[in-house]
C-alpha cells in the first residue's frame, strides 16, 4: 500500500472522480437491523417452542409412572368357590367379590383391625377399584391359584398416586382434599415396608378408556389413530398426487380446471368441524357406514388433508425443470412415462413435506371426529377399522375435561405421546427426503 505508485494512482483516481457518498453507514445499519429481525423472528419461534415443550413435558412426564402397592392376596375358597365348582360354572368365578380379596390383603398388610370400619374404608381408598379385573384374570388363567396366597402388585388408586407425586396441596384442611391424614399415615407405613413403588406405566399405552385414571390408557386411541393414519396415507397420498399430476401435467387451462383449483384452495379454508358434518351426512347417514369407526374417521380426515397435499405436491411438480420433461418427451417417452419415470421422483421430497404437514394436521384433529361419534368412551380394542375406536387427540380432549387431578398429568402425558408420534413421522420424512435428495 505504501508504495508511491499505488498512492499515485489513488490520487489520480480521486482527482478524476470524487468518491460518491452512497449512504453506506445508513444502509449498513438497515442491513444489520434486517438481519437482527430475522434472528429475532427465529428466536421468538424457538422460544415459544421451548416454552410449550417444557410446560408439556414438566406437567406430563409423571404420567409415565404409576404407583403400585405390593399386597399379599389370599385367594380364599370362601370368596371364589372351589376349583371344582369353577370348572362347572364360571359364573360364580366371574362375579366373585375380588375387591374384597384386595381389601383383606391390604388390611392385613397394614395391620389394622378388620372391624374398624373407618380404617378399612380409608385403606380401601388406597387401591384402585380396577383390581377386580386384574385379580379375576389371574384366577381365570390359573385355577390352581385358588387357596394360595401370593404377593401381587396392585395399582394404587389415583388419589394415592397423585398424592405420591405431590399433586395435592396437603396444607389445606383434611376435608378439602381427596386424601385423608389417616391415608397419608398408611402411605408412610407402606413406604417403610417397601410395599409401595412407582413403576413404569405400561398401562398408559395398553389400556383402553376407563373412568379410573389409574387404569385409563391410550391403547384404543393409539390403534384408532394408527388405523386412521393408515387410511389417510393410503387414500390421501395417492389421490392427492394423482389429482396434482392431472392438474399440473394434463389438465387444459380452462374454466373446469380453474373450478377445481379454486375448490381445492377453498377446501383448505373449511373449518375442520364442517368435514365432520360432511362425514355424518354422507358416510354415516347416506352410505350407512358405522358410527365411531376409524374407517369413517379416516375418510373424513382424508378429505380434510387432501387440499394440503395437493397444494404442496403441485408446487413440487411445478419446481421440476421443464427441460427434464422435454428430454424425456424428445426421446419418445409418453407423457405418462415422463411423469412417472422422471418428474415424480424429482418431486418426491416436496411431496413428502406436504404429506407430513397434512398427516400431522390430521393426527391432531378432534373437531370433525366429534360429529361422527369418535369422541367417545371406548373400552374394547377394535379388531377392524369398522369397529368403534377413538383417537389420540380425542383422548387428550376427553382427559382434559376430566375433573380428577390424575387426569391432568395424563393429558400432558398423552400430548407427549402424540408429539412423539409426530416426531417419528417427521423424522421418517426427513430421512426419506435425504435419501431422495442424496441419490443425485
Amino acid at each position, binding site marked *: 500500500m505504501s508504495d508511491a505508485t499505488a498512492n499515485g494512482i489513488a490520487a489520480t483516481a480521486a482527482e478524476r472522480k470524487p468518491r460518491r457518498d452512497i449512504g453506506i453507514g445508513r444502509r449498513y445499519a438497515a442491513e444489520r437491523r434486517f438481519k437482527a429481525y430475522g434472528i429475532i423472528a427465529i428466536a421468538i419461534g424457538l422460544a415459544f417452542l421451548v416454552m410449550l415443550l417444557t410446560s408439556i413435558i414438566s406437567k406430563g412426564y409423571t404420567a409415565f409412572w404409576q404407583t403400585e402397592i405390593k399386597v399379599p392376596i389370599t385367594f380364599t375358597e370362601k370368596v371364589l368357590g372351589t376349583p371344582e365348582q369353577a370348572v362347572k360354572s364360571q359364573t360364580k368365578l366371574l362375579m366373585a367379590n375380588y375387591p374384597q380379596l384386595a381389601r383383606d390383603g391390604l388390611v392385613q398388610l397394614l395391620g389394622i383391625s378388620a372391624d374398624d370400619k373407618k380404617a378399612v374404608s380409608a385403606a380401601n381408598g388406597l387401591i384402585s377399584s380396577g383390581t377386580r379385573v386384574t385379580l379375576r384374570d389371574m384366577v381365570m388363567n390359573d385355577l390352581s391359584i385358588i387357596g394360595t396366597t401370593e404377593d401381587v402388585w396392585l395399582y394404587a388408586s389415583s388419589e394415592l398416586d397423585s398424592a405420591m407425586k405431590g399433586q395435592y396441596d396437603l396444607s*389445606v384442611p383434611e376435608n378439602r382434599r381427596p386424601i385423608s391424614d389417616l391415608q397419608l399415615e398408611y402411605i408412610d407405613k407402606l413406604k417403610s415396608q417397601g410395599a409401595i413403588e412407582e413403576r413404569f406405566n405400561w398401562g398408559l399405552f395398553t389400556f383402553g378408556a376407563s373412568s*379410573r385414571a389409574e387404569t385409563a390408557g391410550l391403547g384404543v386411541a393409539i390403534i384408532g389413530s394408527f388405523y386412521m393414519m393408515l387410511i389417510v396415507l393410503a387414500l390421501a397420498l395417492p389421490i392427492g398426487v394423482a389429482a396434482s399430476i392431472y392438474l399440473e401435467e394434463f389438465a387444459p387451462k380452462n374454466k373446469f380446471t380453474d373450478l377445481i383449483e379454486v375448490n381445492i384452495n377453498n377446501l383448505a379454508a373449511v373449518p375442520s368441524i364442517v368435514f365432520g358434518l360432511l362425514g355424518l351426512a354422507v358416510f354415516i347417514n347416506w352410505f350407512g357406514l358405522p358410527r365411531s369407526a376409524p374407517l369413517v374417521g379416516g375418510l373424513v380426515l382424508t378429505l380434510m388433508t387432501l387440499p394440503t397435499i395437493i397444494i404442496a405436491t403441485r408446487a413440487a411438480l411445478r419446481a421440476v425443470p421443464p427441460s427434464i420433461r422435454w428430454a424425456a418427451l424428445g426421446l419418445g417417452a409418453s407423457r405418462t412415462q415422463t411423469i412417472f419415470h422422471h418428474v415424480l421422483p424429482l418431486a418426491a421430497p416436496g411431496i413428502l413435506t406436504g404429506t407430513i404437514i397434512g398427516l400431522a394436521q390430521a393426527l391432531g384433529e378432534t373437531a370433525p371426529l*366429534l360429529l361422527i361419534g369418535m369422541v367417545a368412551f371406548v373400552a374394547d380394542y377394535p379388531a377392524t377399522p369398522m369397529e368403534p375406536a377413538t383417537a389420540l387427540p380425542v383422548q387428550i380432549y376427553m382427559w382434559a375435561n*376430566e375433573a380428577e387431578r390424575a387426569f391432568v398429568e395424563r393429558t400432558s402425558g398423552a400430548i407427549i405421546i402424540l408429539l412423539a408420534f409426530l416426531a417419528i413421522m417427521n423424522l421418517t420424512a426427513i430421512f426419506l427426503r435425504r435419501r431422495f435428495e442424496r441419490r443425485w
Partner: protein
Amino acid sequence: QSNQQIHVAGSSTVLPYAQIVAENFGETFPDYQTPIIESGGSSAGLKQFCQGVGPDTIDVADASRSIREKEIKACADAGVTEISEVKFGYDGIVFASSASGPDFKLTPAMIFTAMAAKVPQDGKVVDNAAKSWNEVDSSLPDQEITAFIPASNHGTREVFEEKVLKQGCEDSGAMEAFTKSGMDKDAAEEACMSVRNDGSISEISGDYTETLARIEANQKAIGVFGLAFYEQNQDKLKVATINDVVPSADTIASGEYPVSRPLFFYVKRAHLGVVPGLSEYVQFFLSEQMTGEGSPTVEYGLVPLPADERDEQVSNFENGVTLGSKS
C-alpha cells in the same frame, strides 16, 4: 356390528357417570361388550337418537336437560315413537372461587344484583354499575366483580338463569321494579335474565377445566361449577353458600340447596329386545350398586335420586311407560 353393542351418545355432563356405569357393566356382564359412550352434547345426542330406528342408529341418548316437545315430534316423524325417559340423578351447580380468597355467602338476589345487565335504581332502570361485591351487599368481601358463567349453549345456563337470576330478580324486587317501569311481563323476565356485558362477566362454552384454569389465572374471580368437579378440586376451590346452605349431595337431594338440574337418559324402546344387553344396561344404571348411596357415580359427584324415586324410575321403565303415555 353395531346392533351387537350398546351405543350411547349425548351430553358431556352425563358422560362421566355413563362412563363409570358402562365400565362396570362391561366388567360385571362379561357376555356383553362394554357400551360405547359418545360425548358431543345433548343436542347432537338427541339428534342422532331421533335419526330413526334400526341397527345403524344409537340406542340411548344422554341429556342434561329434558327432551323438548319439538324434539319428540321430530323423533316420531322419523319413527322413534316409544321413548323411555329415565332420570337418574342431579347435577349440583355451585359457585366457587379461589381457595386462597375470601368466603362468599351468596343469595340469588346478590348474584342478580351483581350480574344483571340492568338494575332498578330509585325507580329507574339503569345499567348495572356495581364494581365490587361489597357494593352489592355489605356482608360480601370488597372484591372486584369478575365471574365465569356457562355460555348459552350450555344446559347449566338455563338453570342459572331460571333458578338464580330469575329467582334473585324476584327476591330483590327488581322484577316488580321492571314491570313498574313500563315493561311487560316478557320484557321484564328477559331483563331479569340478561347478564351484563361490560367484561366483568365472561361466558365459558367449554368445560369446567377451563373455568378452573381461568380462576387460577385470575384469583379474584368466581365461577360456576358442577358439584362433582368442585369436589375433585376442593384444594383449589372454595365453594360459596347460597342462602347459607353449603352445597353437597345431601343438601341438594333434600332440596335445601336450590341450584341443581336433573340428569336424564332416553332409551329407544324399540331397540330393547334387539340390542343384546340394553335393558340390562338400563337396569344396571338404576341399580343401588351404580347410582345409589356410596356408589362410584355418587363418589364421583352425582347427586343421587332418593331411593323411592329411583324405584319409581325403575318401575316406569319396566312397565314400559313412554314419553307419550306418561302425560
